[in-house]
């Protein structure tokens, strides 16, 4: 059951990421990225991180991707054209990424015995467990992030404003 869910949603993740890579229009890439992020939320749930699964759906596939699609529509972005730089990137980028993935896969699978196995339902981190650490031990960093968010909002408004 768990393995089936992992294969289905892991496959959806990889398929969505490959679609992001292969599509030429940015809106198609954005929609496939939403698929990747929503499937990742299910994988978080399988790993017992229920708060992060909800936050993933709300923050990533909700807020951030809505921002992306808004900007794509606002700027009326068209299909990207092939240039000399993209050919160079194909020559360097695809083998580099292939080497990276095969290296990491080899390392992880050769140490497979050292890692634990996941069973659904064990070690479920509830929102209460998370907030107990977040609001007791990490209260100062949590409050500092609110300042960061305010500065980011002000910066975004200042950057995107029309100049006179």
């Amino acid at each position: 059951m768990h393995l089936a869910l992992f294969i289905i949603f892991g496959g959806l993740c990889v398929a969505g990421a490959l679609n992001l890579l292969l599509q030429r229009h940015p809106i198609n890439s954005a929609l496939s990225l939403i698929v990747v992020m929503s499937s990742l939320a299910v994988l978080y749930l399988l790993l017992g991180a229920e708060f992060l699964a909800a936050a993933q759906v709300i923050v990533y596939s909700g807020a951030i991707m809505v921002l992306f699609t808004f900007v794509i529509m606002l700027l009326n972005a068209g299909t990207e054209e092939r240039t000399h730089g993209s050919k160079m990137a194909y020559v360097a980028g695809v083998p580099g990424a292939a080497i990276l993935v095969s290296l990491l896969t080899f390392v992880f699978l050769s140490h497979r015995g050292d890692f634990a196995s996941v069973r659904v339902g064990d070690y479920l981190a509830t929102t209460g467990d998370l907030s107990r650490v977040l609001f007791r031990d990490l209260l100062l960093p949590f409050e500092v992030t609110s300042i960061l968010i305010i500065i980011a909002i002000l910066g975004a408004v200042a950057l995107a404003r029309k100049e006179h």
Partner: protein
Amino acid sequence: MVPIAYYLVLSAILFSIGVAAFLIKRNIITVFMSIELMLNAVNLTFVAFTRHWSQVTGHLQVSGQIFVFFVMVVAAAEAAVGLAIIIAVFRARNTLNVDQIDLMKL
């Protein structure tokens, strides 16, 4: 029962696709989206290792998940500022192609 290593391999695949998309894509918005994909892959690694650490120590560990929470917060701020910069660049240069935005190139 799924070994943690499978989750790590999945996240390695997602990260590498993100790297490839970052290098290949010529649209600045898509390049930015591939950065988000890489961040997501790293988040999956954090959650998987949190689970591994819980199993090793025998009781629930949440520090890795809190790390992911902070990554999400910073990613949201970064997306807002980055897209504002993209809008400003588009206003100034009237293009989204990264090959044509090369003023700082030697």
